[in-house]
């Protein structure tokens, strides 16, 4: 039943997006494709943080892994688009599994630090192995419109279709997962690890699974982004991206898939809008490029103070369907602080 409901809604949304892509023009199609790519990545991250209770500030690295995997497979083996996306998911999932296992004993800020390290270090691999990964210059990948659409079909519209399809599929899968036994087990582990373990849940396995799935989503998001921008370079996967993904998940509402959409929307649209606003008010090119980052930080602070459940929380309250949510986004993570610390309160 749940599956049928999810699929039905996804189908309706798919038709709406299809019709929309004809109306909005090539540039907005490009932005729609970008948006969908980020939705996939942020959705995986919000599930990881909001539902399984683990933090990652290194998801940009998994996006990079997926993007480079797709780029290399396209360049050297000329795989078709669908296979590229699946391959990106698999490779990123494998990486996520490794990271998940390595970080299984870490909680809270220590896990954050480990994932941060990943985000900082991974892009440098491209510079180190320049022959394979193209260094700072990166790799150019070019995808063309499939034959059956005709030569005059706009590339950006095709990309929008591909990305929106991937986003809808991912959202359906994640929504089902959230409603399933695994989703409930994740919530149990997130809320009280000790109780969950006493109830017979394999905590470590569930946490690694969460990492695997969220990094697979990030990998798909990265591959889609690479295809949309036609370029994979370390400069696309900076620390700012990882923090931006986290911010998008938090602002949208942790644990909520709709929140992933709101957050991604802000992530894609706001910087450009603010830059235009700043330069139309006479700020120099350099200054107006810095306005979005400043505003982003400001918005994050305001949201954390005033709307801890993010945009989706505010929407739910408006619609009167406010449910017991995860509480403040950080409280769930705080509960994950190592229990051993409180045991010994001896001499100071």
């Amino acid at each position, binding site marked *: 039943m*749940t599956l049928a*409901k999810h699929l039905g*809604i*996804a189908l*309706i*949304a798919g038709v*709406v*997006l299809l019709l*929309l892509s004809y*109306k*909005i*023009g090539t*540039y*907005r199609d*490009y*932005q729609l494709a*970008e*948006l*969908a790519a980020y*939705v996939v990545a942020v959705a995986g991250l919000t599930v990881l943080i909001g539902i399984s209770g683990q933090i990652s500030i290194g998801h940009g690295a998994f996006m990079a892994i997926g993007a480079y995997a797709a780029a290399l497979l396209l360049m050297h083996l000329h795989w078709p688009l669908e296979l590229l996306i699946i391959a990106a998911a698999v490779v990123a999932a494998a990486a996520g599994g490794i990271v998940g296992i390595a970080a299984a004993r870490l909680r809270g800020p220590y896990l954050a630090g480990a994932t941060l390290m990943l985000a900082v270090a991974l892009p440098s691999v491209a*510079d180190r192995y*320049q022959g394979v990964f193209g260094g*700072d*210059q*990166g790799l*150019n990948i*070019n995808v063309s419109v499939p034959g059956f659409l005709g030569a005059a079909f706009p590339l*950006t519209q095709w990309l929008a279709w591909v990305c*929106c399809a991937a*986003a*809808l599929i991912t*959202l*359906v899968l994640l*929504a089902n997962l959230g*409603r399933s036994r695994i989703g409930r087990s994740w919530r149990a582990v997130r809320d009280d690890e000790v109780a969950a373990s006493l109830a017979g849940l394999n905590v470590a396995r569930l946490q690694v699974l969460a990492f695997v799935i969220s990094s697979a989503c990030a990998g798909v998001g990265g591959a889609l982004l690479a295809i949309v*921008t*036609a*370029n994979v*370079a370390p*400069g*696309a996967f900076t620390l700012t991206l990882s923090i931006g993904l986290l911010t998008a998940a938090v602002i949208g509402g942790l644990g*909520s*898939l*709709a929140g*992933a*959409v*709101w957050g*991604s*929307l802000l992530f894609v*649209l706001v910087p*450009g*809008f603010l830059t235009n606003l700043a330069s139309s008010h006479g700020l120099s*090119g*350099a200054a107006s*490029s810095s306005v979005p980052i400043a505003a982003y930080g400001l918005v994050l602070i305001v949201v954390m103070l005033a709307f801890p459940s993010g945009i*989706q929380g505010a929407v*739910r309250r408006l*619609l009167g*369907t406010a*449910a017991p949510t995860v509480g403040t986004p950080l409280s769930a993570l705080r509960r994950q602080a190592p229990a051993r610390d409180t045991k010994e309160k001896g001499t100071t």
Partner: protein
Amino acid sequence: MKRLRTMTFAPVAGLAAAAMLISACGSSSSSSGGGGSSGSALTASAPGITSSTITIGSHQPLTGIAAPGYDEIAPSSNAYFQYVNAHGGIYGRKIVYKYLNDQYNPSMTSTVVRQLVLKDNVFAIFNGLGTPTHLAVAPFLNSEKVPDVFVASGCECWDAPSTWPYTFGWQLDYVREGKILGQYIKQHFAGKKVGYFYQNDEFGQDGVKGLNDEIPAKQVVAKAAYDATNTAIGPLVAKLKAAGAQVVVSFSVPAFTALLKLNALGLSYNPQLVVSDVGSDAITLAGLLQSFAKQSHKTVNGNQLTQGIITDGYLPALGDTSSTWNQLFTKIHTQYLSKLPFDGNVEYGMAVGYAFVQAMLKAGRNPTRQDLVNAINGGLGQGPLVAPYAYSATNHNGVTGAYMGIIENGVLKPQGSVLVTDTTAGGAITADTAPQPAAPTSGIPPK
């Protein structure tokens, strides 16, 4: 159950709403096409051209590691365009130059150029700056059939008329430059140990290709490649010092030339520096040296540190006040750009702006995008450049030569005549003694 429904409905509805939001924010831009017609009426003959304006776009590093110096180029081109606009424009149309910041980051270049082409509907992309950055967008521009003229990079890759027919270089390409610098080193530093310091991408690699063509292999004792994202080049400079390089050839952007000099100073290492013209503007370097040194709480005299740097130039030397081109550019600089110093970047920006106006005038009263491409394919007069252009239907490289020079007291002093060559290994380097044409008195290229 109600919560369930909302929770499952919300995400996909959210995606649909998001898409609608984007479309609501969006402005649909329609380009009116029309055949170019000869006659006095000005029509909207191509995207980006109206009866009164020509809109062009560019991607520039306005912030970031490549910004010092390079962020002056687009405002300088814009100053020249404003001068032209104030004196009748191009067949009465004013040039609108929209340049966006890509922070020398190829991923941002992708986004910014798509905005210019798909949303702002520019007629052409002009002077896109950077080798790694522009490589990210050249395929897109050619598949969209947008003229990609006078790329601000000397990569050999822009000379590809069969695969990228809409892309044209302008400045001295790095292979030619490597050959000219290499020949100078071969002649003046025979027997000395040579080290290479270069950016780890097509820019540096093309330069090295040209150098290797002239400098005997056994003279080269070390090669150190830097990444533009990593300013900690101490180990690279130590490598050059350890190999005993007495001459260091540098294909680097200004920030990294300054870092090279400062790191060498710190190691008490004082090789003869031979620097590519993209990273050797004396005024920019002096400023960078002083500001980088200040970050480590040291004071240096910029001009003292740039003394003796050997480089090349393909525009009139800044100190040459008798040059009619310098007189024209100084006049425009005083009127439109007084806040910036009159340095090599300003001269570059105005000179490439002049080339664009030349090409647009040649393209006709109501040009299509193809008309602009054809105009450049037919060849352009060399204008303010010291050597001829290579432009033809089969060659999209820009200027074919330069003169060597040494920086003395913060000013580039030319040495010897202009040298022209080609991009082939073993191709001859010959002197071009033809006098440079004078600037038009109006400052606007002849039609």
